[in-house]
């Protein structure tokens, strides 16, 4: 957020905060070891608020369970914001010094009275008021979320609405206060860090707007980089539909089963001129492929790094020999480069990482020996003396402010695309994630994603709900 896509805080801070909001997250089941840190906080006296349509196992630990109607998160956040402003509990000094757009934001939330909020969300006004006051009055407060926030058509607005609350109360950029998306897989964060998103180069450097960064990469790689954003997954499927995308190289993803509309995904993948799938299993997507490249399991049959939800870059190491003809992803990619006429110039994960450090300032200080010695390092880590960054955006509290102010975003409640019915609380969380088989907030401890891993797992609890 505010330019760098990562959670702002350390797990340790969850133990030392005064109020924890889990919004659209059932961390007890989905992120059990993160929830250990939450429970340390709870036992130390922190108040726990859980916002979820279902009374989850996380909610059972909460002081307040806000059983929100599906898809009304912006409505709730805006109602909380209005109540904080009307009660005069917002942090005026922080807002004036470190943010922009407050007036417009305040005007926009004006319509979200407690009564209106109750009508939108189904949560009693008195409880919304109580939570609003508690969040604003807490010395330190954390908001943490997962797919209950991000797996919606208006997910960006949902996240912006939560960021607004933190800015309103100065609950970001300080030890113990922050905003934390809990990632669904071990390297969701690292994929973004490494530029595996269509609009950023490694280290969140803007592909289109940051000419200096792009030139730096062009010089290092000796190739011209097209100065325009690529397509994200949804846009790729749209491009397949239009016939603009005819060849696809899929690495460690199973879109034939993970897309919400699997029938459509299946048809489009089948219609491709050329489909290459690189995976550790012969997934449903791999069965559609023209070429399958068997890969080794990155976490135990290969060397490399991953980044977790507190921005900690950690080493994965090879413990097993991969079966059959399976190869390390990095070997396959390097070999593919060579055969396409572009030798990468490196062959090991450490070589590739060293190149990355020379191009991504936020990773510059993370040598392999330091990652080993320090038990992982949290970015940004700009040089080899830098211990890394337990929390982000401390600059917002510098006087005078360092860097650009953080913007408020006026966002409005938009109803879910699917019409909600009487039993929507129960069904919509399922529908929202139908293609995923099990959503992250509904995911049972023993299952994950399209179950390609967990289905081979003899857990006594593996039987689904």
């Amino acid at each position: 957020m505010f330019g760098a896509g990562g959670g702002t805080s350390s797990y340790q801070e969850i133990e030392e905060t005064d109020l924890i909001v889990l919004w659209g997250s059932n961390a007890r089941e989905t992120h059990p070891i993160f929830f250990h840190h939450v429970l340390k906080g709870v036992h130390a006296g922190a108040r726990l608020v859980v916002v979820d349509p279902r009374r989850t196992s996380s909610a059972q630990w909460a002081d307040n369970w806000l059983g929100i109607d599906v898809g009304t998160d912006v409505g709730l956040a805006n109602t909380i914001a209005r109540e904080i402003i009307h009660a005069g509990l917002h942090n005026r000094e922080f807002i004036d010094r470190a943010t922009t757009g407050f007036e417009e934001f305040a005007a926009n939330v004006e319509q979200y009275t407690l009564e209106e909020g109750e009508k939108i969300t189904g949560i009693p006004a008195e409880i919304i008021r109580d939570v609003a006051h508690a969040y604003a009055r807490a010395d330190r407060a954390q908001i943490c979320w997962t797919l209950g926030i991000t797996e919606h058509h208006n997910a960006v607005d949902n996240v912006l609405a939560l960021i607004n609350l933190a800015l309103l109360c100065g609950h970001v950029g300080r030890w113990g206060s922050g905003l934390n998306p809990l990632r669904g897989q071990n390297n969701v964060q690292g994929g973004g860090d490494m530029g595996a998103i269509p609009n950023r180069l490694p280290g969140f450097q803007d592909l289109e707007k940051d000419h200096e960064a792009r030139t730096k990469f062009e010089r290092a790689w000796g190739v011209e980089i097209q100065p325009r954003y690529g397509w994200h997954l949804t846009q790729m499927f749209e491009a397949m539909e239009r016939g603009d995308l005819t060849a696809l190289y899929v690495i460690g993803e199973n879109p034939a089963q993970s897309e919400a509309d699997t029938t459509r995904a299946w048809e489009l993948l089948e219609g491709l001129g050329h489909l290459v799938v690189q995976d550790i299993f012969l997934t449903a997507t791999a069965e559609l492929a023209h070429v399958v490249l068997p890969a080794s399991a990155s976490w135990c049959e290969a060397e490399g790094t991953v980044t977790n939800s507190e921005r900690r870059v950690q080493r994965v190491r090879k413990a097993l020999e991969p079966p059959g003809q399976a190869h390390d992803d990095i070997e396959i990619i390097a070999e593919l480069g060579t055969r396409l006429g572009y030798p990468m110039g490196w062959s090991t994960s450490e070589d590739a990482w060293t190149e990355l450090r020379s191009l991504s300032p936020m990773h510059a200080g993370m040598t392999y020996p330091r990652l080993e010695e320090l038990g992982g390092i949290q970015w940004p880590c700009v040089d080899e003396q830098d211990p890394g960054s337990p929390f982000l955006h401390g600059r917002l509290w510098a006087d005078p402010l360092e860097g650009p102010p953080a913007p408020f975003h006026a966002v409005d409640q938009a109803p879910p695309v699917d019409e909600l019915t009487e039993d929507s609380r129960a069904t919509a969380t399922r529908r929202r994630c139908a293609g995923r088989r099990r959503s992250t907030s509904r995911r049972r401890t023993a299952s994950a994603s399209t179950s390609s891993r967990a289905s081979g797992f003899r857990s006594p609890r593996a039987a689904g709900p």
Partner: protein
Amino acid sequence: MSAVPVTLRRVVELEIDGQTVRAMEGQTILQAVRALDVEIPTLCWGETLTPVNACRVCMVEVEGSRVLVPSCARKVEPGMVVRTNGDRVRHSRKMVLEFLASSVDLSTTPNAARWIEEYGAEPDRYGPAAPPAAAGERDRAHAGHHHPGDGQTAATVAQPVKIDNESYVRDYSKCILCYKCVEGCGEDWQNTFAIAVAGRGFDARIATEFDAPLPDSACVYCGNCIAVCPTGALMFKSEYDLRHAGQWDEERQTQTDTICPYCGVGCELTLHVQDNEIVKVTSPLDHSVTHGNLCVKGRFGFQFVQNREKR
């Protein structure tokens, strides 16, 4: 305002075995002693657990104290005079080890055999072991059920191994009632509270609610109890099966640290590998994310890399 808070601690000066020692305020005697590279045996103490003072094997002498004190829990104090290896201490440890070794199977307890020798413990002097209990017998015991033995045999906790799931086994013949599993499952970490100590006196045992089999209990199979068990009473099924077949061989095993593949929390795993198969998963106690704990996925969810050809 935007800094990581630091806790300042005072230095405490004390005497250990005639040597003047400086320790940090809040440290235990055990920590201060171990910093000197002097060994104090421990069983119920765990680096990441609240001390429960159950096993009494770490007792030391503190001048001015009428009784021996548990070094794992007692904090250092300025001017304290500690003796870690005097006659009283050695005698106490000998008795504790004799009581434990005569009633419990310590064959997979690291260091137990060495300590027994070092302290001159003679567990056999209580007579041959009484016959083991039948399956479930000890779990049904209530107050008043226990009768003193005939003096000819040594009472034991021996009973059949409990194997009721594919993840881990419970061999309570090896349980010394140290409470570590209860603590790990309870408020120290997992907060699932699936197990507790049931019964009193010699009938005391670790039990699920109403002695339900694990799959019917509150257990979530995080295995954090296995991670802290000091005697091997709680054991990976994979380790149990290999030991049973006489194939468990730590000499042939490698330990590799990596990161769990499942969610985004980033738990460090130590993979114990024998013959290119993962046989056990642990996590380093000093890792800031896990403190040695894992969930069911990290602990047991590794089979998918080992059965790819069979699928």
